[in-house]
C-alpha cells in the first residue's frame, strides 16, 4: 500500500512539474507554426520568376571567385516549388544545369545536366547537405521553404537590423538534413526572413545567413538582393547577389522537366 502511495505521489509531483512545461512547449510550437505559416502565406501567389544572380565565394584568406547563373522558379501550390539553375560562369561549367523538385513529404528530387557528355545525372537526395558549387550554401539552403519540412518553436522577440523580429527555431524533419536546427529571425512588419543561424549535427553554430536590400515586387513579394552566408567554423563566406528578377514569365511545368534541363544553356 505504501508502495502505491509513493508511486502516486511521485506521479503527482512529476505532473506538476511537467504539465506546465509541456503546455508552454505546445504554446511555443503553435506560435512558431503560426509565424511560419504567415511567412509562407505572405510569399504565396508569385507564380513564376526568372532571376539572374552572381555568387561571390571568399575563402578564409579573402580570395574571391565568382559564379554567374540564371534561375527559373515555378510555384507549385500543393507541393514544393520547382527550380532550374543554369550556370554561365565559371566557364568550364557553362551550360551545366541543376533541376530541383522540392517535395513536401518525400525527399526532394534533383538532377544535374552535364553538357560535356550531354548527360542528365540524378543526384541522390542525401547530397542535400553538400555545398552548392563549392559555396557556403548547401543544396538544401536553396530549396523552397515548405512548412511540412520542419517543426517549429517560437523562442522570443528581439530587434535585429532595426526590425522587430520573431525568433523561431526550425527543426528539419529530414534525417538527411545537415542541420540539427536553425534559428530564424522573421520581421514582424512583413514576415520576411532577416537572418538564419544554422546549427550542425553536433549542435554547434555552423553558419549564419543574413538578408539585405529587400525590394518589393508586384506590390506583394519581398526579395532580398543580397544574401551573405558566413561560415563560423572555417571563416569562409559567400555572397549571393540578385542582379535582376522578373515575374510572370509564363513558365510552366514543361520548363522544369528533364527535357528542359537539356534545352537550357
Amino acid at each position, binding site marked *: 500500500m505504501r508502495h502505491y502511495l509513493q508511486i502516486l505521489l511521485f506521479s503527482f509531483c512529476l505532473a506538476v512539474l511537467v504539465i506546465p512545461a509541456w503546455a508552454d512547449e505546445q504554446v511555443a510550437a503553435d506560435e512558431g507554426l503560426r509565424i511560419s505559416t504567415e511567412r509562407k502565406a505572405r510569399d504565396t501567389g508569385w507564380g513564376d520568376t526568372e532571376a539572374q544572380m552572381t555568387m561571390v565565394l571568399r575563402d578564409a584568406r579573402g580570395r574571391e571567385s565568382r559564379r*554567374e547563373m540564371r534561375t527559373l522558379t515555378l510555384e507549385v501550390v500543393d507541393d514544393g516549388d520547382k527550380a532550374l539553375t543554369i550556370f554561365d560562369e565559371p566557364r568550364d561549367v557553362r551550360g551545366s544545369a541543376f533541376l530541383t523538385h522540392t517535395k513536401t513529404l518525400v525527399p526532394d528530387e534533383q538532377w544535374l545536366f552535364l553538357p560535356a557528355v550531354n*548527360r542528365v545525372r540524378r543526384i*541522390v537526395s542525401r547530397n542535400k547537405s*553538400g555545398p552548392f*558549387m563549392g559555396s557556403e550554401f548547401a543544396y538544401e539552403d536553396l530549396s523552397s521553404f515548405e512548412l511540412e519540412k520542419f517543426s517549429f518553436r517560437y523562442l522570443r522577440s528581439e530587434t535585429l537590423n532595426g526590425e522587430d523580429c520573431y525568433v523561431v527555431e526550425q527543426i528539419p524533419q529530414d534525417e538527411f538534413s545537415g542541420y540539427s536546427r536553425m534559428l530564424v529571425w522573421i520581421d514582424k512588419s512583413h514576415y520576411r526572413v532577416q537572418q538564419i543561424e544554422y546549427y550542425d549535427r553536433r549542435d554547434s553554430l555552423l553558419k549564419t545567413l543574413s538578408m539585405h536590400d529587400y525590394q518589393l515586387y508586384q506590390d506583394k513579394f519581398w526579395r532580398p538582393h543580397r544574401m551573405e552566408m558566413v561560415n563560423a567554423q572555417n571563416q569562409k563566406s559567400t555572397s549571393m547577389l540578385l542582379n535582376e528578377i522578373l515575374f510572370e514569365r509564363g513558365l510552366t511545368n514543361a520548363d522544369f522537366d528533364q*527535357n528542359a534541363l537539356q534545352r537550357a*544553356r
Partner: protein
Amino acid sequence: MPTLTKMRCNVLASWPASLPAPMKGQWLAALCFLVCAIPAAASPGGQLQVQPNDTLWRIANDIRPDHSISVMQVMLAIYELNPQAFGQGDLNRLLHGVTLQLPDREHMLRQSSQLSAEPAEAPGVATEPAPQMEATLAAVPPPLSSNPVATAVVVTEVSDPAPVFWQNVEWFSQLNLMPRWYPQTGLQQQAQWHSSISLEFEGYWQSDDRSHTLVFSPYLRWDQRDSARHLLDISEAYWLYFGGDWELRAGINKVFWGAVESQRLVDIINQRDLLDRPDGESKLGQPMLQLSLIRDYGTVQAYLLPYFRERKFAGEEGRLRLPQRVDSSNTLYESRHKRNHLDWALRWSQQFSSLDLGLSYFQGTAREPVLLPTEQQLTPYYPQLKQLGLDAQWILGSWLWKTEAVYRHTAAEHSKALVTGFEYTQVGINDHFWDLGWLLEYQYDSRGLGAATVAQNDLFAGWRLALNDAAGSEILFGMMQDLDRSHSRSAYLEASTRLGERLRLRVDGWLFHSRYPDELLYWLRRDDYIQLTLEYYF
C-alpha cells in the same frame, strides 16, 4: 567512366603468346584446319537466286553449314565462284536477280586455308579464320585525350547595322592542350610522347520566347604523331523547336541514353570517338531528325538517322591499336545503301518518383564494326542491327541502383548483355565537405569468352571523390577485373580541378593488363598512359 577497352578480338584468337611471331600464322593455319576438319558434314553446293532484299552476308549466313566456318569464309567462297554476280567486282555490290552458284563445304574451307597459308610475319596478319570468326567484334582501341565540349562566355558585338539575330548569337570557345605520355614504347615501336591539341567553338542563339534555338559547334583536333587522329568534325549543328509539350530537333546532335558508369550498353545513337578517349565517352556528331513528345505517360522520342558515321581507328604511328592496320577505305556494309541506310530509333522514358526508367529500340547500321581479316589488314564490316534496350535508376537514400540491359540481333547472332550495380554516396566524410561515392557494377554478355565481347563476366569497382571546393575538384578511380580470367584487368583515373576562371586542369590515366592474346586488352598491354589536359576557355 566506361570501358570499351575490354573487348576481345577474335581476329587474334588463340595465338599463344609464347610462340615467336613469325611462326604464328602457320601455327594458326594448322590449328584452324584441324578445328574446321573435325565436324565434317559436307553441304552440297546448289544454286540460289538473289532476291531484292538479300545481302551477301545474309546469304552466306544462311548457307553456312556450321559454326566451324565463318560467314566471311562463305562470303569469299561465293565471291570466288560468282565473280559476275558483283557489280564492278566489288564484294559490297551483290547484284539482284542473278543466280548464284553456291560453294560446297570444301570450297569454303579452302578460303580459310588459302588465306591463312600466307606468310604471317608480324603479329598483324589477320589471316586467321578462327572458328566463329564472324563474331569478331572489335571495337577499337582508342587513344587520346581530353574532354571536348566547350565553353566560355563572349557575346559577339557585331557592328550596329547588323541584323538583330547576329547580335544575339553567343560564341564560346575552348582550347585543349593534351600532352600524353606512355611509359613504354608501343608493340610496334611507336613513340612514348603523343601530344595533341583540340579547338572547339560553339555558337548559340535562342529566340526571345525560347521556342527556337540554333546551335553550331565545330571541332578540330590535331595530333603530333598519328594523322588518323586529326579530326575536323561538326559535333553539333541543329535547330530546335520547343512547342510546349513537344520538341523537334533537326541537324547534327549528340544523344545520351543510359544509367550505369562502367559501360555504355544502350547508348547507340552516336558513333564513338575512341581516338579521343578509350572509354567511349567522346562521340561524333550524328545527323538526325528527332521528335520528342512530352506527355503524362512519359517522354517519347523518335529518331530518324539518315547518315552513318564510321568509327575511326588509330593509324600506323598511333598507340592503343591492334597490331594490324584497319583499312577504312574498303569498309563493308551489310546494307547496300551503305552509310546512307536510314536508321531509326524510338525511346520512351518516364520518371516515377524515385525510379527513372527508359526503354529503347534501335534498328539500323551497327555502330560497332566487325573487323574482318583480309590480306594484311582488318576491314571494318557494319552489319544491320536491331537492339532493344532498358535503362533504369532507382534512388534509395544514399543508394543509387543502376541497370542497363540490351538484346541485340544481327544476321549472325543474337546476344544479351547486362550491366547492373550501385553507387553509394557518403556525404561529408572526414569532417570535410567531401563526398565519397562507392561504385560496384557487374557486367555480363551472353557472347561469352569465345566470342568477341566486351566484358562478358566482369566486375567493375570505382570510387568517386568530390572535394566540393571552390575549384570543383574531383577524382574518379575505377578498375575492371575479368572474373573468368585472373590476368585480365584494367584501371583508370580521372581527376580535374579549376585553375582560375578560365582554366581547368585534368589528369587521365589508364592501365591495361592481360595475358590472353585473344582479347584486345592484350594488345594494349604496353599502352598504359597518363595524360594532362589543360583546358582554356575564351
